[in-house]
């Protein structure tokens, strides 16, 4: 019936998100400033030399993900809440297929997250003196992590937008879903820092990809329910 394809509609939603974001810069500022602030606080207070040699692999990997996770939370939760706040949700609901909305919002979150990682991770490595052996495997890990984390947070953002819209609720709902991911990501980062072989990060990577993939698939089924009711 429809002349447009799901792909072109998703791209339209993504394009709208990006244009709005580039003009208002709400999410970008929130995520960037939050990330930078925590990074500087951590780097200033701990720095490259405070941590004992034997603790470095564990602590540096964990600290990195703590910074990345908290910076992301402030921005990712907004994707659907802002539609409800601006009263555009109903307009969008009538005009677009749910899957196009989900895909567009997911891609937007993915881009936001990737930008954050590209910005914070090199800075963190420089400021904390974190030498990573397997740069390729870390990049792979970050990419898969970004996909899995944006899948989860997009769905949770959709749920809270229909509930109360509070960031607190976003944190409460996303923590149990994100914790297993974070555990695997920290584990993988530690492995990547210590070895150049991709095989070292493979166990973590497998877990992240399957959890992220499962979340994406289930979202396709669940999102219309959340979006319409």
């Amino acid at each position, binding site marked *: *019936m*429809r*002349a*447009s394809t799901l792909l*072109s*509609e998703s791209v*339209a*939603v993504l*394009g*709208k998100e990006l*244009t*709005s974001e580039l*003009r*208002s810069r709400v999410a970008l500022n929130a995520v960037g400033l939050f990330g930078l602030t925590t990074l500087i606080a951590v780097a200033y207070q701990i720095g490259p030399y405070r941590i004992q040699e034997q603790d470095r692999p564990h602590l540096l990997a964990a600290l990195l993900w703590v910074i990345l996770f908290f910076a992301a939370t402030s921005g990712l939760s907004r994707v659907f809440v802002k539609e409800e706040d*601006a*009263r*555009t949700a*109903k*307009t*969008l*609901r*009538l*005009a*677009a297929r749910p899957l*196009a909305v989900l895909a567009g919002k997911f891609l937007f979150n993915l881009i936001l997250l990737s930008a954050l990682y590209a910005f914070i991770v090199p800075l963190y490595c420089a400021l904390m003196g974190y030498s990573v052996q397997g740069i390729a495997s870390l990049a792979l890990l970050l990419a898969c992590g970004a996909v899995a984390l944006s899948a989860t947070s997009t769905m949770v953002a959709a749920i809270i937008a229909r509930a109360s819209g509070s960031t607190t609720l976003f944190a409460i709902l996303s923590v149990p879903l994100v914790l297993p991911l974070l555990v695997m990501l920290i584990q993988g980062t530690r492995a990547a820092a210590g070895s150049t072989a991709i095989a070292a990060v493979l166990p973590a990577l497998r877990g992240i990809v399957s959890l992220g993939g499962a979340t994406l698939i289930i979202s396709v089924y669940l999102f219309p329910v959340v979006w*319409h*009711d």
Partner: protein
Amino acid sequence: MSAVSVEFQSVGKRFGNRGVLAAVSGTLQRGRVLVVAGPNGAGKSTLLNILAGLLRPSRGEVVYREGDSPLPRAHWFERLGMAAPDMSVYEELSALENLRFFARLRGLHLDSQAMQGLLEELGLASKEQSRAVGTYSSGMKQRVKLAQAVLHEPAVLLLDEPSSNLDESGHAVVAGLVARFRERAAVAVATNDPREMAWADARIDLAL
């Protein structure tokens, strides 16, 4: 595209223990404007939301028919144009960008001139059209919302308080719009305004 009619039978809605709409029945069809009247809080917007398929009724049912066959719920939104106080357009985008966005979502291949023409018809001068909607007055925003509702020439048009925030000239624009769509779409208007009630071919009065 053949005409779409909307039949609703003893439709009611309650939120928890609070009934907002008692059993209402009626029909929307081409050539007849249905006016839904009643004081604030009587359930006008609720009824329109139920007709649009945005809200599940607590009782009763809504049926869309295209020609003689019932239209599956999944296709309602494609046939539907709606403007309501709680349906804004994007403030960061200009009026034209908004229309372009909604046109792309609905798979329309409209050129800019058609969209500019529509906005002008609704009283938005062309020099205003590429400014961000956030800088508009509320009346101008209302005109963009109306443009969004009729952009795809819907077969069912639901207007909730279409003249809110509009001046005299705006009221005339809405009247023109309703007149234009009376012959090609099933139109419902929810209003308190006596001048708009005069458009009615059929009327439902809701009480508190």
